[in-house]
C-alpha cells in the first residue's frame, strides 16, 4: 500500500467534441428561448421552462458545494481524490445564481411568474381582485422581501461555494493543514445555514407559484431532489472523465460509494415524496388536495413517470452491489435519475404556471438542452483550470487506496 504512480498534476483539457457539443447545446437553448419569446402566447410557458432549468442548474451547483461541505465535516477520506468535480460545480454556482435571479426578476417584472401572489389588487380589500389568503401571506410574500431572501440566500451559498474551492486551491499551493482546518470550520457554518435556508428557498422559488397551497414537507422534498440530482451529475462527470482517460485513480470502490449515495438518496426522495403525498391523501382537506388534484387530473403520465424514473429505476438497477461498481450501469442510472428529476420539477412548476396548457415540445427540450450545454461548458471550464486532484489533501492517500 501507499505506492502509486499517478500524475497528480494532470489537468483536464476542455476542447474537441465536448466543447463543440456544449456550445451547440447553448445555441439550441438560445434558439428555443427566442422561439418562445417570439410568440406572445408562449411567454408564460417559456418563463416556466426557464425557471425550471434555472432552478435545476442552481440546485445542482449548490448541492455540489453541499457535497464538499459534507465531506469536510464528516472528515471523509474516500472522496478526497474526486473533490475537484464538486468544486468545479461549486465554482459555477455564481453564474447559475445570476441566471436564476435574472429569470425570477424578469418573471416578476413581466408578471409571467409568481402572478398568483404578485398581481394588482390582491391585497386591497376594496378591489374585485382581492384575495384574503394572499393578503394574509403578504407580509412574507411581497416582492421586496421575496427578492431580498433570494439574493441573500443565493449570495451566501455562492460565497461559501467559492470559498471552499479557493481554500482547496490554497492547499495545493501551500500544503499543510491550515486550509483543511479552515474548510472544516466554514463547512460547519455553511451546513447549518444551508440546512435552515434551503427549505425557505424552495418554498419561495417553487411552492409560491401556487401560493394558496402549502406543505411543510416541500422544502425537504426539494432538498432531496436537488441533492440526488447533484450526485448523479457528479457520477456522470467522473465516469465520462474516466472514459476519456482522466482520473485513473478513481476505482470501482469510488463508483460504489457514489452509487450508494444515488441509491440511498433516491429512496430518501421517495420517502419524502410519499410522506407529503400520504398525509395530504389521508387528511383529504380540500386546500391541500388541490395540489395533487391538478397533478393527477392533468399531469397523470408525468406523475407516474416521475415515480417510475426516480424510485423504481434506481431501486431495481442499483440495489445490486455489482451494478453499483459497473460504470456503464451507474452512468445509465445517473442519466435516468437526472431526466427523472427534470420531470419532477416539471410537474412541480407547470401546474402552477401554465396549468392545463402545458406542453412538451421544442421549448421544453431546447431549454433543457441549452442549460445542459451551459452547465457542461461552465463546469468543464472551471474544471480545466486546476489539476484534477487536490494533491495536498491530508486524506488523499486514503482515497487513492480506497477499497470496499
Amino acid at each position, binding site marked *: 500500500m501507499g505506492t502509486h504512480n499517478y500524475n497528480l498534476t494532470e489537468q483536464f483539457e476542455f476542447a474537441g467534441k465536448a466543447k463543440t457539443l456544449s456550445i451547440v447545446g447553448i445555441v439550441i437553448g438560445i434558439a428555443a428561448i427566442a422561439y418562445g419569446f417570439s410568440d406572445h402566447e408562449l411567454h408564460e410557458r417559456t418563463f416556466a421552462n426557464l425557471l425550471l432549468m434555472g432552478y435545476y442548474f442552481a440546485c445542482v451547483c449548490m448541492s455540489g458545494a453541499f457535497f464538499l461541505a459534507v465531506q469536510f465535516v464528516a472528515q471523509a477520506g474516500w472522496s478526497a481524490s474526486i473533490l475537484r468535480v464538486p468544486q468545479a460545480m461549486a465554482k459555477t454556482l455564481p453564474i447559475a445564481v445570476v441566471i436564476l435571479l435574472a429569470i425570477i426578476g424578469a418573471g416578476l417584472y413581466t408578471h409571467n411568474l409568481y402572478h398568483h401572489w404578485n398581481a394588482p389588487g390582491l391585497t386591497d380589500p376594496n378591489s374585485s381582485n382581492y384575495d384574503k389568503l394572499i393578503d394574509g401571506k403578504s407580509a412574507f410574500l411581497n416582492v421586496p422581501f421575496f427578492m431580498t431572501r433570494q439574493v441573500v440566500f443565493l449570495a451566501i451559498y455562492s460565497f461559501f461555494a467559492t470559498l471552499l474551492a479557493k481554500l482547496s486551491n490554497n492547499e495545493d499551493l501551500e500544503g499543510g493543514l491550515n486550509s483543511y482546518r479552515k474548510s472544516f470550520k466554514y463547512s460547519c457554518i455553511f451546513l447549518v445555514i444551508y440546512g435552515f435556508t434551503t427549505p425557505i428557498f424552495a418554498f419561495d422559488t417553487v411552492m409560491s407559484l401556487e401560493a394558496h397551497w402549502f406543505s411543510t414537507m416541500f422544502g425537504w422534498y426539494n432538498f432531496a431532489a436537488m441533492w440526488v440530482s447533484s450526485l448523479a451529475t457528479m457520477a456522470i462527470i467522473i465516469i465520462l472523465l474516466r472514459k476519456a482517460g482522466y482520473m485513473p485513480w478513481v476505482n470501482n470502490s469510488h463508483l460504489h460509494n457514489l452509487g450508494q449515495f444515488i441509491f440511498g438518496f433516491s429512496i430518501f426522495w421517495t420517502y419524502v415524496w410519499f410522506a407529503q403525498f400520504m398525509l395530504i391523501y*389521508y387528511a383529504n382537506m380540500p386546500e391541500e388536495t388541490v395540489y395533487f388534484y391538478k397533478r393527477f387530473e392533468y399531469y397523470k403520465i408525468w406523475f407516474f413517470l416521475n415515480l417510475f424514473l426516480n424510485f423504481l429505476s434506481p431501486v431495481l438497477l442499483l440495489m445490486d*452491489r455489482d451494478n453499483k461498481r459497473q460504470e456503464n450501469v451507474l452512468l445509465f442510472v445517473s442519466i435516468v435519475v437526472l431526466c427523472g428529476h427534470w420531470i419532477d420539477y416539471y410537474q412541480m412548476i407547470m401546474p402552477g404556471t401554465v396549468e392545463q396548457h402545458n406542453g412538451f415540445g421544442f421549448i421544453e427540450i431546447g431549454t433543457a438542452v441549452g442549460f445542459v450545454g451551459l452547465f457542461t461548458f461552465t463546469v468543464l471550464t472551471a474544471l480545466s483550470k486546476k489539476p484534477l486532484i487536490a494533491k495536498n489533501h491530508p486524506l488523499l492517500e486514503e482515497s487513492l487506496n480506497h*477499497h470496499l
Partner: protein
Amino acid sequence: MSNIKYILGSFGDPDEMMHGIEQLQANNISIHDVYTPMPIHGIEAKLGVKRSRLDIFAFFCGITGTMSAFALIYLTSVVDWRNNIGGKPSFALPDFIPIMFELTILFTAFGLVGSYYASTHLFPGRAPRVMDLRATDDRFVIAVDAQQNADHTKIDGLLKDAGALEVKHNERKYISYE
C-alpha cells in the same frame, strides 16, 4: 500423527500478518481462517473468501415482511372487518405502504440478527467459540489446520519469519468450550 489440531500464528501488526498469509500461500499451506480484532481491507480477496450471500438472505427476509404486512392489513381491513375511514375505500393502497415498509425493515433486522447468532453459535448459556482469546483484543491470528498440513516445523518457521510474536499448537479447535 500428533494430536495437534491447529497451529495459530499470533501477530501484533496487521501488515505483518498479511505478509504471513502471503508466505504461507507461497508455500502451498492452506489457511483455515484468520481472526482479527478489526476489519482489514482486502483480506477477503487475499484469502479467497467467497462472496457473502447475506444480501440475498436480507432481501428474502424483507420481502417476507412486505408480504406479511400486506396480508395482515388486507385480511383484517378488507376481508374480515371493513371500516369506513374518512370515506376511503377499504382497499386503499397508500395507507398500506407505511406498515408494509416498517415490517420489511423489522423482518430484515430480525432475520439478520438471527442469522448472525446462528452462524456464530451465539446462544444464551453457550460459551462463544474462540480459537485465541487475544484475537478479540489486540492480536491478529492466522489459524492453520495441523491435520491437513503435515510439516509443522516449516509452518512455525514461516510464521515466525513473517513476524509472529507467538506460535501456538492447540490440541482442541476452540479454547473456550468451558
